């Protein structure tokens, strides 16, 4: 079931699979099979950790993140989003490693009781590059792939429809719950809830919001269960898919190639063969 096939017999009054389902993306990268993109992101992230040092991750990022981002015309957004994603941990990692590197001797800067060391700086930069590599790989996936496309692809390959359902529903529930929380916050604020101020006050302010959001969602479980079961959800086994993303032999080879390369890398590092 590659791509979207239309009914061959387009008699008047009979319509086929609507064309808004599975609309191909704008660039080659977007049109890659979602599993390929997921494999690329995961392999890049793991390899960034496995490579160690500076040169390896930088080359990796260029090849596996920057170049595809250019082809997909998302480089600007990628840089912005991945920096945003990496920022909290990057700051922490940089500060903690720069100032608190045990065994650092070459002091660069002293602030009160803590001091920044050159060894710490080197390590901090390395960790920073690694974090940016991971965040870039993940962001590239996020920008070029719809999660529901990946789930449909996996379902076509054989994962249980229930797992597919759970994944898709989880993705949709997060923004839905946030919206509900926003509404409840507005309602509580109208009743005088204090949401600014000290940590203690903010903590206390969270409870009247979190409570209704969580309990409200759980109260809906019974109704949703009934609605799903009324629509054949209890039927065991596979279900029909209307469409699925296309896949090519070339991409399958590329995926296996990436995975094998990663395994080889890890094995060679563990066995101490390389660097």
């Amino acid at each position, binding site marked *: 079931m590659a791509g979207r096939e239309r009914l061959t017999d387009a008699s008047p009054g009979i*319509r086929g*699979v*609507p064309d808004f389902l599975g609309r191909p993306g704008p660039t080659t990268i977007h049109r890659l099979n979602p599993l390929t993109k997921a494999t690329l992101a995961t392999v890049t992230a793991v390899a960034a950790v496995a490579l160690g040092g500076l040169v390896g991750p930088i080359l990796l990022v260029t090849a596996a993140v920057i170049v595809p981002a250019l082809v997909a015309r998302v480089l600007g957004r990628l840089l912005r989003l991945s920096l945003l994603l990496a920022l909290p941990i990057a700051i922490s990692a940089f500060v903690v490693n720069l100032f608190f590197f045990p065994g650092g001797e070459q002091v660069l800067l002293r602030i009160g009781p803590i001091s920044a060391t050159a060894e710490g700086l080197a390590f901090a930069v390395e960790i920073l590059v690694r974090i940016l590599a991971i965040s870039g790989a993940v962001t590239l996936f996020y920008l070029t792939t719809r999660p529901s496309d990946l789930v449909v692809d996996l379902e076509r390959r054989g994962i249980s429809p229930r797992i597919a359902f759970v994944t898709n*529903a989880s993705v949709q529930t997060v923004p839905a719950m946030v919206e509900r929380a926003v509404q409840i916050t507005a309602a509580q604020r109208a009743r005088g809830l204090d949401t600014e101020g000290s940590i203690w006050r903010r903590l206390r302010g969270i409870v009247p919001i979190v409570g209704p959001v969580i309990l409200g969602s759980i109260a809906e479980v019974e109704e949703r*269960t009934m*609605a799903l079961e009324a629509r*054949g959800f*209890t039927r065991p086994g596979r279900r*029909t898919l*209307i469409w699925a993303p296309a896949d090519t032999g070339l991409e399958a080879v590329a995926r296996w190639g990436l995975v094998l390369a990663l395994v080889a890398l890890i094995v060679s590092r563990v066995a101490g063969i390389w660097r």
Partner: protein
Amino acid sequence: MTLALHDVGYRYAGADEPALLGIDLELRAGTVVGLAGASESGKTTLCLVASGLAPRTIGGRIRGRITLDGEEVDAWPMHRLGQRIGIGFQNPATQLSQVAATVFEEVAFGPMNLAVEREAVVARTWSALDALRIADLAERDPRQLSGGQQQLVAMAGLLAMRPTYLVLDEPTAQLDPAGTRLVADAIVRLAGDGTGILVAEQKTDLLVTADEVLVLAGGRVALRGAPDEVLADRRLPELGVARPAAVRLRRAAAAAGGGGERLEAALHD
């Protein structure tokens, strides 16, 4: 083609008292049976029992017989029963599957679960959308629709399962007048096309055009008959049921002294 309940009773799990007792009901294809009653009178429970969700999905105990065209359906699993009897609820939002980005995929959800062939899934989806006149909404995101539209999408999702019977539990309860109108018209059309519909409503105005009306009280059938008789019955207020506007106007006109028929004619213009 009949869905029949014979002396049916139901008790929720962990409850001492039955929520339904001695219910006899016949729903024929192409007819509309209305269900009225105060809240907690058993309307929702009866809908759940008629559709099979009680006791299959929600547990509890049942007695009596439920037959589909004469065949007992006790042993039928929910996904088999769902292809003959569809059930819709009050809250349109909780009926959405949450995995569909478009109305089309939302409506196709049922047939997809039944593993019907792809062409059949697509054909059923389009015909369900057409039956409810919402084919133009096919590309929209179901979560962005109005309540009335969502309720229609939910009903289309049920219709795509090709049920002979539809059970609707207060479908217009959370809708504004425009949405209510949409759903009410759809119900009339569907019955005309051959679906048997059991609809529970607090808004008794909507039951005026039904073929038969049952009024429940305390889990039993208190009144039964044609809407003209039942909805004009003296005992309605003490059973906690509001009289439809038309009935109230008629009585008011009669009390004010004559002119009842002219008022009726004027109302129906």
